[in-house]
């Protein structure tokens, strides 16, 4: 078919005009741009990957294959297989001292992402303000906006190891504040919160009657202490919507298996949305997730130990090449400061990619407060990390000589 260029232009314009303004106005992800840049190039070492470098353990994959052979292919109950919900309940109790009734307090979701979407859709009314500590995972703010809420950033700082402080939180609270979204251990900073760190936050939450969505997807990847769930802080159980999943702890990102736990009233509301949108999480994934919880703890511990080793390697490496870097206590990201180079995060990341062949994500992809920082994932082999650090050292040396 021959299409006149003018008509084509016109068509594109007019098709865009059909889009909901809320969606049309969402800015494209800062990560996407680096993905496109990195994807075309050769010989790149990437520190830009936000997922484990392990393949899902074989026993988990095998359990899924076996279930397919037996013909386990039907819908499950909306909230997910009861055996899986029971296993999740038991696991959360044993690992993080939180108690949820598998009957009416847990939904198995399509990744933690769906859980966050469900929570926000269930709670946000137009004009509600959603408090989001930054730098943070990329999806909280756009999903808030789609739901008609107003995202309100709360700055966190390198001097505090990017922990959330009660003062910073309190400063952003207005009568419209309704929800606080937490993500600790943090993507992208690797920050964690201890019991003592949480107490003053819990006070503010109580005082201003907030609901908390606590994204604890990296809970298992906590290195020097054990993870403290926000739901386990006295008085916070009913106020907290706990979001987690299997992606990071069990190396199961592509399976899209997550879950959400909350007060039965909130779960009932979320379940309505879940049943009308996805019906239930894929049954193969549920079978695999159950196997991971039943028999996967040893492998999980082995993987966590391996991340911890590489965490030490990258932090030491950054210090050796002269990049300031707080010690990340969780997840698999280091968040060094590149401010000393005088370049913006984006310019630094772009030049690092083109000139040194190392891909990393500029801090600004995670909010304006990420300016001056670079997110580096250390979920890659020791050999690759060592080579990446070498290349970055040479690159920094070159930058110094330029100035």
């Amino acid at each position, binding site marked *: 078919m021959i299409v006149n260029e003018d008509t084509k232009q016109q068509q594109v314009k007019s098709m865009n005009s059909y889009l909901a303004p809320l969606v049309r106005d969402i800015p494209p992800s800062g990560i996407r741009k680096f993905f496109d840049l*990195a994807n075309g190039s050769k010989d790149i070492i990437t520190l830009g990957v*936000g997922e484990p470098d392990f393949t899902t353990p074989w026993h988990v994959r095998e359990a899924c294959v076996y279930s397919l052979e037996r013909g386990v292919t039907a819908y499950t109950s909306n909230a997910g297989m009861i055996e899986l919900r029971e296993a999740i309940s038991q696991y959360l109790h044993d690992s993080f001292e939180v108690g949820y009734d598998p009957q009416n307090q847990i939904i198995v979701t399509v990744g933690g992402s769906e859980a966050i979407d469900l929570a926000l859709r269930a709670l946000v009314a137009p004009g509600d303000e959603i408090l989001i500590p930054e730098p943070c995972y*990329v*999806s909280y703010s756009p999903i808030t906006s789609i739901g008609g809420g107003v995202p309100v950033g709360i700055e966190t700082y390198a001097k505090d190891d990017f922990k959330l402080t009660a003062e910073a939180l309190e400063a952003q609270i207005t009568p419209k504040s309704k929800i606080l979204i937490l993500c600790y251990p943090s993507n992208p900073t690797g920050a964690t919160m201890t019991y003592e760190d949480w107490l003053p936050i819990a006070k503010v939450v109580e005082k201003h009657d907030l609901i908390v969505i606590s994204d604890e997807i990296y809970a298992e990847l906590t290195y020097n202490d054990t993870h403290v769930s926000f739901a386990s802080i006295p008085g916070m159980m009913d106020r907290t919507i706990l979001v987690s999943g299997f992606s990071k702890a069990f190396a199961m990102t592509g399976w899209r298996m997550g879950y959400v736990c909350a007060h039965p009233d909130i779960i009932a509301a979320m379940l309505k949305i879940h049943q009308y949108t996805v019906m239930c999480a894929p049954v193969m994934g549920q079978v695999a997730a159950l196997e991971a919880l039943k028999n996967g703890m040893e492998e999980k511990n082995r993987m966590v130990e391996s991340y911890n080793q590489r965490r*030490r390697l990258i932090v*030491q490496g950054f210090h050796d090449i002269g990049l300031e870097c707080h010690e990340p206590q969780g997840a698999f990201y280091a968040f060094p400061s590149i401010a000393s180079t005088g370049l913006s995060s984006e310019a630094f990341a772009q030049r690092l990619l083109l000139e040194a062949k190392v*891909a990393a994500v500029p801090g600004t992809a995670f909010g304006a407060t990420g300016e001056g920082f670079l997110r580096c994932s250390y979920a890659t082999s020791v050999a690759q990390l060592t080579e990446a650090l070498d290349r970055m050292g040479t690159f920094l040396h070159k930058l110094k000589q330029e100035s």
Partner: protein
Amino acid sequence: MKELTELKLKVLDLLNEDARRSPLLLSTLIGVDEEAVKEAIAELEADHVIVKYAAVVNWSKIEEETVTALIEVQITPERGRGFEGIAERIYLYPQVKSVYLMSGAYDLLVEVEGRNLREVANFVSEKLSPIDSVLSTKTNFILKKYKQDGIIFEDREEDNRLMVSP
């Protein structure tokens, strides 16, 4: 003493993954002093816990001629020495790559390598079977090695992650 043992285990795990890792790298990965790692390695070597630093080689890539057999050997234990003496008589042959004492239907599992089938067959008929206390042998030739010492020779699982993801 317990802490040193834990450190040694970590050192062993990491060297088992890659024996060429330096004490400095090991100390960074484990989060201890380089000196402590050096000391642990020296002790492990002195105690022959670390026996040798050898490469895992996929010989089939370069030497198609080589054949390996796993030979099940039934023997009568010697009075007073059990299986030790016979095991030694067998493992001292350079073509014997490994010898295990087994539970079950036979006593020793002997891995023998040769340039061809005949060489291995000759070893069995001329060296192994004639040993007095050897009652019987059963020779199984290896056709292909998929995995050895926890290492998959031709790993088909690639890193198919996206270069950059949130």
